[in-house]
C-alpha cells in the first residue's frame, strides 16, 4: 500500500493538484509550531480499508441469509472495531504539535536535511506518525513523556535557489491500516539550496587577487603579538594563537583586519565562462574552501556585494547570495 502511495499515478496527480491547492488555500501558510486541530486533519479509507469493508458486507449478507445471529454478531464486532480504528486513526494526529526544528541548507544535488519536532501536549502516546514530502518519508512514534521527538526527512534538492519548505504531509495509518489520516502543513520557512561547488578551484591568481597578501600574512608567524586580539565566539580555531595561549593562558586570535593583508574578494566577473551556473559553482567552491581555511573573504556578484568577513554566518550569507543570484526572489 505504501508502494502505491509512493508512486502516484497520473490520475492521482491530476486529481491531487486542485485538492492540494484547495487545502493550501484553506489553511494558509503555517508558522512553526503548528498544533493539528481536527478541522485540518483529513481521513480516507486505504485500499485495505475498502477490502475490509467489502469483507464485512459479504459477512453481513451471509449472516442475514443464514439468519444466523451469532455470525451477524461477529460481523458487527469487526465492523465496530473498524469504526473505532477510524476514530483512533484520526485521534492519533489530532493535537499533535509539529514544528520545524532545523533546516540544513544543502548544496544542489545533495539532500536537504529537514528536521521536524513532534510533540504531544495532551499526554497521549502517538504511534507510527509518518512525515512525508512527496515520496520521501520518515517514521516516528511520539511518546508524550519524552521530549519532542525529532524526525528528519532527507529531501533531494537538484537545483540551487531560494525556496519555501515544500508541503509536509503528517500522516498515520495507525492502528489497523484501514484508514489513512493526514494533515498538510505549509510551513512558511525558507529553504535555500546553494549551488553545487565545482570539483576544484581554478587558478588562484585569476580567481583570488588578494591571495598574495594572505600568504605573506600567514608566513609572519605567531609571535607577532601586535596582531593578536582576544578570542571571540565564532573565531576559527586555526586562528587561535596556541603558543600565546600556552604562555599567557588566555585565548588570543590573530587579528587579520588589523593586519596589512587586504581582504580577498571573490568576484563573479573574474570567473571566466559562459555558463552562469558553472561560474557560480566555481565561486561556491572558492567560498567553501576559504571558509574551511578560516580566511577572510568577500563576494561580489554584479551589483550585489557581501562585505568581507569570516565565520559560519558569513559563509552562509555568501552562499545564500550565490543561491539566489539571478533568480526572481
Amino acid at each position: 500500500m505504501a508502494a502505491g502511495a509512493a508512486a502516484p499515478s497520473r490520475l492521482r496527480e491530476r486529481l491531487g493538484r486542485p485538492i492540494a491547492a484547495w487545502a493550501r488555500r484553506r489553511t494558509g501558510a503555517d508558522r512553526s509550531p503548528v498544533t493539528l486541530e481536527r478541522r485540518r486533519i483529513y481521513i480516507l479509507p486505504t485500499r485495505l480499508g475498502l477490502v475490509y469493508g467489502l469483507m464485512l458486507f459479504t459477512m453481513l449478507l451471509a449472516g442475514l441469509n443464514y439468519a444466523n445471529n451469532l455470525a451477524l454478531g461477529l460481523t458487527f464486532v469487526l465492523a465496530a472495531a473498524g469504526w473505532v480504528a477510524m476514530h483512533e486513526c484520526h485521534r492519533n494526529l489530532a493535537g499533535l504539535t509539529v514544528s520545524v526544528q532545523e533546516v540544513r541548507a544543502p548544496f544542489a544535488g545533495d539532500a536537504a536535511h529537514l528536521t521536524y519536532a513532534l510533540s504531544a501536549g495532551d499526554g497521549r502516546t502517538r504511534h507510527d506518525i509518518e512525515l512525508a514530502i512527496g515520496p520521501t518519508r520518515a517514521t516516528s512514534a511520539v511518546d508524550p513523556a519524552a521530549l519532542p521527538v525529532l524526525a528528519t526527512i532527507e529531501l533531494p534538492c537538484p537545483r540551487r535557489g531560494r525556496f519555501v519548505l515544500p508541503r509536509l504531509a503528517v500522516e498515520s495509518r495507525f492502528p489497523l491500516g484501514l484508514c489513512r489520516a493526514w494533515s498538510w502543513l505549509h510551513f512558511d520557512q525558507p529553504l535555500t539550496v546553494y549551488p553545487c561547488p565545482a570539483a576544484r578551484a581554478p587558478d588562484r591568481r585569476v580567481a583570488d587577487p588578494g591571495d598574495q597578501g594572505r600568504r605573506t600574512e600567514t608566513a609572519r608567524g605567531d609571535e607577532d603579538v601586535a596582531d593578536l586580539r582576544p578570542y571571540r565566539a565564532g573565531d576559527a580555531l586555526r586562528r587561535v594563537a596556541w603558543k600565546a595561549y600556552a604562555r599567557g593562558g588566555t585565548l588570543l586570535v590573530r587579528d587579520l583586519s588589523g593586519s596589512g593583508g587586504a581582504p580577498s574578494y571573490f568576484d563573479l566577473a573574474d570567473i571566466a565562462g559562459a555558463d552562469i551556473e558553472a561560474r557560480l559553482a566555481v565561486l561556491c567552491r572558492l567560498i567553501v574552501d576559504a571558509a574551511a581555511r578560516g580566511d577572510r573573504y568577500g563576494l561580489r556578484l554584479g551589483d550585489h556585494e557581501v562585505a568581507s568577513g569570516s565565520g559560519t554566518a558569513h559563509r552562509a550569507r555568501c552562499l545564500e547570495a550565490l543561491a539566489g543570484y539571478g533568480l526572481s526572489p
Partner: protein
Amino acid sequence: MSRAPSAADRHLPLACGALGLAVLGHVGVLPTWIGLLFIVALATRLLGVLQPRPILRRTVLAVFALGSGVVVLANFRTLNGLTAGTSLLVAMAALKVVETERPRDYATLAFIVFFLSLASLLRAPSPLRLAHALACTWLGVQLLLETQRPAAASPLPAARQTARLLGLGLPLAVVLFIFVPRLEGRFWAVPSGGSEATSGVAEEMNPGAIAKLALSDEPAFRVRFDGPLPERASRYWRVLALDAFDGQTWRRSALAATLAPAEPADSRVAVRYSVELEPSHQAWLPNLERLVDWSGVRARRDADGTLALQDNEAGQPQKVDSLTSYSARATPPSAVPTGELDATTRRRTLSLPSGSAPRSRALAGEMRAGSATSRDYIARVLGYFRTEPFAYTLEPPPLGPNPVDEFLFTSRAGFCEHYASAFVVLMRAAGIPARVVIGYQGGDLNAYGNFLLVRQSAAHAWAEVWLDGEGWVRFDPTAAIAPERIRAGLDGALPEAEARRYRHHFAWVLESRAALDALKAGWDRLVLGYSSRQQARLLDRLGWIGDPLTGLATLLGAGFALTALTLLTLQLAFRVRPRPDRVQRAWELACRRLARRGLARDPAEGPLDFARRVRTARPGDGAAFDELVRCYVRIRYERAPVAADTEEFIGRVRRFRP
C-alpha cells in the same frame, strides 16, 4: 516494498496461530487432504523461519490454488455449500501462508481468519463456538495491528491495543446487533449438506426408531403458553402422521402431503402458545393437536394436519436449520365437529399390505365380531394390551420379517412405536381408518424460565383413529401398557433396571440441568432467536409508528451518534493533561506579570538573558527579578536541588509585582 524476509517473518507465529485456531473450528468436516495440506504448509513455513529457503514461486502456487479449487469442486460438486467453501478457504490459507511476506499477505491471512470464524458460527451457533470465533477475531485483529505498520515502527503493546479496539467497539456492535434489520426470507438458497444429520423424529418409523431417540437429552423445542399449562397427559405434540405401511416401516404417503382445506375451529377455546424449535434439519413444526392457526413463520398445513416450514408461497418445504420460533393456537380435541372422511383418505388409511400380519388380522376379526361399535372394539384392543403380559422396554428383542405378528404374539415387549404400529394394524384390519402419529409427548416445566422444555427423549408414537362424527381421535396404546409414561414421562415408565441404566435420578443433576436449560433458553430466545419479528416488537414497544425499516434505520443512526458522543465524552473526560509543576506555574506567572508591563519573554530567551534584559529595561525591578531568576536557575539546573528553594522561589514570585 520488498523487505528482508526476516523482518516480516517475525509475525509468522501469530499468523499461523490465528489460522490454526480458526481451522480448529472445522476439524471433522474438512477433507483429510486439506487438513494435511494445511499442516504441511504451516510446518514448512514455520521451519523455514529457522532455515530460510526459497519460497515457492508464484506460478507454482497459482497452479496449486487452481488445483485445490478443482479438487474441492470435484469433492463437493459445489463451492456454494458451507463445507465446500470452508475447505476452499483453508486450502487457500495453506497456500497463502507459504508465500506470505508482505503486510498485504498478512492482511489476507487475517481476513481468512475472520471468514473461517464466521463459517464456524454458521455451522453451529453455539456459545462455545462464539467464544472460539471471538478468540480468532482477537488474533486476527492483532495480526492486522502488528503487520499493517511502517517498516521502521517501534514495538507496540499490541494485545492492549487490540483489547482497546474491540472493547470500545462493543457498545456499537450491540447497537448494530439490535437495529440492523433482519430478513424475512433468504437471498439465495443454501444447499443443506448431506452430511448434516437430522435430529428428532425421522420421517419414517420402523421398530427401534424412537427408542434410539429416548436416550437423547438434547432439547427438541421449548414452549411458552399464554395461560395455564395443559396437563401432561394431554400434551401431545404432533410432528408427522404416517399413513403408509409396507409391513415393516411406516411412511408418509404423497396424499397426506397435499394441502389441507381450512378446518372449522372454535377459536374461543383455543390454547395459545409459542414454540422455539431447535434446528431439526427437517421441515416439520411440532404442534398440539387440532391446530387453528399460526404466525411468525411461513408454513403450510397438509391434509394430515402436519405443519411444514416453507421456503416461499409456492414452494418447497424448507428445513429448520436454525432456531425457529412461531406462535400457534390449537383447540382441545373434543371441541371440533368434523365432517366426512373423503374416500381416498379412507382407502389409504385402511390399507394393509396383502399377506402381512395374518395372525393379527385374525385376532382383529375375532375381537371386532364381539364388539358392537368401533369404540367398543378399541376398548377391547386396549384391554388386550393391558391384560396380556405386554412389557414396556427400551430393549425389545429384535423382530423378524413379520414384526407386528411377532410383537403381538411372541415377544410382547416393545417401545411406543411397537404398540402404535400394532394398534393401527389392528384398527385397519377391523375396518377402522387409522394412522400412526409421531411426535413428542409431555415435556418438563422449567421452573427457572417458566417454559416447557421438550427433549428428544420425549419422542413418542401413538395412533389416530377416524370415528364417524368425531373425526380423527387420538388413542395411545402405550398409555394402556405403561400409564406412567404419559403421566410422569419416560423415567417412571421404564423397568427399574433399565431406568437405572439409562436415566439419572439425582435431584441435583436434574436441578442444575434445569438451570442450564433455562440459561440456554434465554440465550436462544434473546440472541439466536432475535429476528425481524422481535425487531418489530421492539419498535412497537418504543412507540414507533410507521415503516419498521425506517424505524430501524433511524434508531441505528441514533445509536451511531450516541456511541460517537459517548466515545468523545470519554476521551474528553479521561484526557491526561500534563499540568505544569508549581515551579513552572510560578515562573510563568512572573513572566506574565512582566509581560503586562510590556516586557514579554521571548520563547527562545533563557531566564538569565531575560533577567539581563529586565535589569536594563526596568532597573527598579531588576534586583528583585534577579534574585528570583537565580532561585529559578538553582531549582532547574542545579544538580541537587533543595526543596526549600522551591518554597523560596514561589514566595518571591508571589511578592514580585513589577
